[in-house]
């Protein structure tokens, strides 16, 4: 026979939150390991094109980025809607690429200078004219290893 319950208030024991910090720390470490810091804030809008045969860029320290796209909303007044180039945090002209590459290369260790890779992150609607200009500048700057940034297409 079942026991007859006594009338009266039943108190639910409080859930122990002692392990909460541990759980959160675990999440924290997961994110610290699996993500990487943003390189810069984009001044241009970039939706990279899709491709299937991608290779990942191995060493972050050897990679420099060139961003190409239409200026973001807040910069349109100042820079217009023409496709622009961004180096580090600033807008730049095609002619500035050579000195940028040379500066970046000189800042690297001597034995790594030949491994410098330029990653071109360009919006998929960009016209090839500006990309061709960039490529020509990179050739002149002897930065021959390049990578066209893209995302995996399923």
């Amino acid at each position, binding site marked *: 026979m079942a026991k007859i319950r006594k009338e009266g208030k039943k108190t639910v024991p409080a859930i122990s939150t002692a392990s909460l910090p541990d759980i*959160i720390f675990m999440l924290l470490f997961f*994110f610290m390991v699996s993500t990487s810091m943003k390189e810069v804030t984009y001044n241009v809008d970039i939706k990279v094109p899709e491709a299937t045969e991608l290779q990942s860029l191995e060493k972050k320290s050897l990679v420099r980025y060139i961003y190409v796209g239409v200026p973001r909303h807040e910069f349109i007044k100042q820079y217009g809607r023409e496709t622009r180039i961004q180096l580090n945090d600033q807008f730049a002209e095609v002619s500035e690429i050579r000195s940028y590459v040379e500066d970046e290369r000189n800042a690297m260790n001597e034995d790594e200078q030949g491994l410098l890779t330029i*990653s071109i992150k360009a919006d998929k609607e*960009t016209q*090839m004219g500006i990309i061709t200009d960039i490529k020509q500048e990179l050739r002149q700057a002897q930065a021959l290893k390049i990578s066209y940034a893209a995302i995996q297409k399923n």
Partner: protein
Amino acid sequence: MGKRSVQEINASSMADIAFLLLIFFLVTTTMSVDKGLSRRLPPPLPPDQKEKLKDLEVKERNIFVVLINSKNQVLAQGQYIQVEELREKVKEFIKNEANDPNLPELSEVEVEIDGRIEKVMTTDAHIVSLQNDRGTTYQKYIEVQNELVAAYNEVRDEYSRQRFGVSYNELTEDRQGAIQKIYPQKISEAEPKNYGGNK
């Protein structure tokens, strides 16, 4: 002296601190790993050599010309085709299994496979030339580049399966190097030309 008990540190704010750190990392980092199509640009031409280059003719059968115009239409070997068809055509071109006189000429290459030097017939002299208009969109250009790389990867993979019984990606570096020598990736991004139209 009596034993004084050390008061326990209150750890209830630990969770808040951890949360704060967590949110900081969530905001400032990005998940995506950088990926892309790796390419090697040709070295710059010295100004006095620009004229000379015209003399350096490559046999016509060894060149596979891909053109993309400003309306994103693809012309391969003089034929208007869709991007999807490009891969098969390039594969056929690189392999030239039937020794077709219209496809690149076969030549003997010495390759070291597993310590032994072997002679393999390959289309060593072939070049895939990609030319685009200034008005081509970047997406189309990448799509075409992607198809070209895919063609090479498939040819290498097929050879690897036939020869070693496993896919190209599972091979040791030495073997991969050997296959790369048999099917070298030769995609030339030609000097820019302006095919009419405004700049």
